[in-house]
């Protein structure tokens, strides 16, 4: 069969991408005497490159027609070469960090998972491998069935930028150079030394525990915990949560603890209000509006001239300034000034220790006296017992001398703390209990400010006009009551009056 005859019996089509050409034959057409050369001439006539194994293709087509003579036959007669596009360079997260993420997601699906503890943040340590930089690959052009080049798209280098918080080695390993949160965006990866939580701390973030500064741009929901190794700032409301920072805490709104909230800071705390929260502040407390129904300890001063302290307990080591003490409802408000829990604990330990040591020394002295009286000529055992008793007495006396010095320092510290004052700008309401230097009084009649609450040198609770000489005993407006739960300074002083301490001093 000639080429022009064949052309009328078959249909040759090239696919859109030019990578293959098919030859189709209608049913009933007989191609038994068509040679591969005829087909080759037909393809050349269409501008299609003749494949090397055309003979096999033509033979396969003939077999197809023979097998199904009543059906249209079709075969791929020529193939091009597909282009190989290059791959772009990319960042691959280290599997350990990916596993961490995976574990979090699995935990999310489990019934017993602690959803509060599930953190949404990837925290990396200094020197930790965070991932790998995959290099881009070269491209290889293709050819279509007509022999035309199909251009391949080359791979591009990774466009992600790594800042100075990461080190990229020559072989593509990426290590963190700082401790912090690994932040991955489309075009940038870095370790953030400040953890910025752009939403509220809730089930979407889990608890937050970060070794450096933390900024929560919204609030903190019930029962969640936020811990910062540095400072902590929370922009919106904190509910009955736990908030801790080794540095300062700034709550731009406040905290409604509902009796379950806790806040503690190793430095200062500044906020608008705190309600029903357990508060521990190592340094200064600054509140703009209210401190209501809180149990509060302030390690230095309360510097809150516009704040009302209503209900609860406020213990302040060095005094300070507030606007009001107590509320209209005459609820119980306990304000204790010059409180140092560590000192109180030491005082308690000494109070328990002193009688034991005194008893031990007295007992040894008594036994020694008895031995001296009993024996005219000592046996070896008696002599050794006496040596032992003398040693016990000496050791006890040395211990008592050191206790006496400690007690003296303690009394001086208490004396200093009892000189702290609290300035109240506007009013002290009935129902407020004030404790300074082991003296306590419950206010019965409203006291108008500005007024300073002080303990006089003679040990009387006084109300003093700030900057002036005018003062009056607090008992004029309050009922004096025994101070509970504070160290009894007078009792500590009486310990030193024990005659054994005089002997100790004389021996020293």
């Amino acid at each position: 069969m000639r080429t022009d005859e064949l052309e009328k019996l078959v249909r040759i089509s090239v696919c859109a991408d030019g990578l293959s050409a098919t030859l189709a034959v209608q049913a009933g057409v007989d191609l038994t005497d068509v040679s591969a050369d005829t087909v080759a001439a037909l393809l050349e006539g269409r501008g299609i490159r003749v494949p090397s194994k055309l003979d096999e293709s033509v033979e396969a087509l003939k077999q197809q027609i023979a097998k199904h003579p009543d059906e249209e036959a079709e075969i791929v007669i020529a193939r091009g070469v597909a282009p190989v596009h290059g791959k772009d360079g990319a960042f691959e997260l280290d599997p350990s960090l990916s596993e961490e993420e995976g574990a979090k997601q699995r935990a999310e699906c489990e019934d017993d998972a602690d959803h509060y503890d599930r953190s949404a943040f990837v925290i990396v340590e200094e020197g930790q491998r965070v991932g790998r930089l995959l290099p881009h690959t070269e491209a290889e052009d293709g050819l279509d069935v007509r022999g035309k080049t199909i251009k391949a798209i080359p791979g591009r280098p990774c466009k992600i930028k790594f800042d100075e918080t990461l080190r990229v080695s020559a072989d593509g390993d990426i290590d963190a150079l700082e401790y912090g949160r690994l932040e991955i965006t489309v075009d940038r990866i870095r370790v953030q030394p400040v953890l910025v939580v752009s939403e509220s701390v809730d089930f979407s973030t889990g608890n937050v525990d970060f070794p450096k500064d933390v900024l929560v741009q919204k609030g903190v929901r019930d029962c969640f915990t936020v811990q910062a190794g540095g400072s902590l700032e929370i922009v919106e409301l904190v509910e009955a949560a736990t908030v801790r920072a080794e540095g300062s805490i700034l709550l731009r709104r406040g905290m409604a603890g509902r009796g379950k909230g806790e806040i503690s800071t190793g430095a200062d705390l500044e906020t608008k209000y705190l309600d029903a929260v357990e508060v521990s502040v190592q340094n200064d407390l600054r509140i703009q509006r209210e401190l209501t129904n809180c149990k509060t300890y302030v390690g230095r001063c309360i510097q809150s001239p516009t704040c009302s302290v209503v209900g609860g307990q406020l213990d302040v080591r060095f005094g300070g300034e507030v606007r009001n003490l107590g509320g209209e409802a005459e609820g119980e408000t306990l304000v204790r000034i010059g409180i140092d829990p560590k000192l109180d604990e030491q005082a308690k330990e000494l109070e328990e220790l002193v009688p034991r040591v005194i008893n031990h020394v007295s007992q040894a002295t008594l036994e020694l006296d008895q031995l001296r009286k009993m024996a005219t000529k000592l046996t070896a055992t008696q002599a050794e017992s006496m040596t032992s008793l003398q040693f016990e007495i000496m050791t006890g006396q040395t211990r008592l001398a050191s206790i006496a010095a400690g007690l003296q320092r303690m009394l001086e510290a208490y004396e200093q703390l009892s000189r702290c004052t609290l300035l109240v700008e506007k009013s002290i309401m009935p129902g407020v209990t004030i404790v300074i230097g082991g003296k306590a009084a419950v206010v019965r009649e409203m006291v108008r400010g500005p007024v300073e609450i002080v303990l006089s040198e003679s040990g009387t609770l006084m109300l003093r006009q700030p900057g002036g000489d005018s003062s009056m005993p607090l008992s004029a407006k309050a009922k004096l009551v025994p101070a509970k739960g504070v160290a009894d300074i007078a009792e500590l002083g009486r310990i030193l009056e024990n005659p054994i301490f005089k002997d100790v001093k004389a021996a020293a």
Partner: protein
Amino acid sequence: MKILLVDDSKTMRNIQKSVLSQLGYSEIEEACDGQDALSKVKAFGPDLLLVDWNMPNMDGLSFVKAYRQDDKVTPIIMVTTEAEKSRVIEAIKAGVNNYVVKPFTPDLLSQRIQETLEKCAAA
């Protein structure tokens, strides 16, 4: 300074150790009798010895005599209940440098130790 305490009473050794540590000496070895002490002196090489007289196995005097055969210099203080003059002389003859009679106060022991060390340093 290395000090060897030889006494069968643990309480006495503890008292002596406490006095020595107050004087600033912390390198202290203990022996519970003369035999035990003899087995330790070579390895420990003490600079001062405090020795009791009455002990089981080997008494203090026998130990001092045995020890002085090899070492005539290192000071020895006898700490004992044997207070009779003849006993003291016997001990001095055996090579004891100073003598503390039980019962003693920590201050007295401390004083004797210092006195002995000063004398030996001057010699």
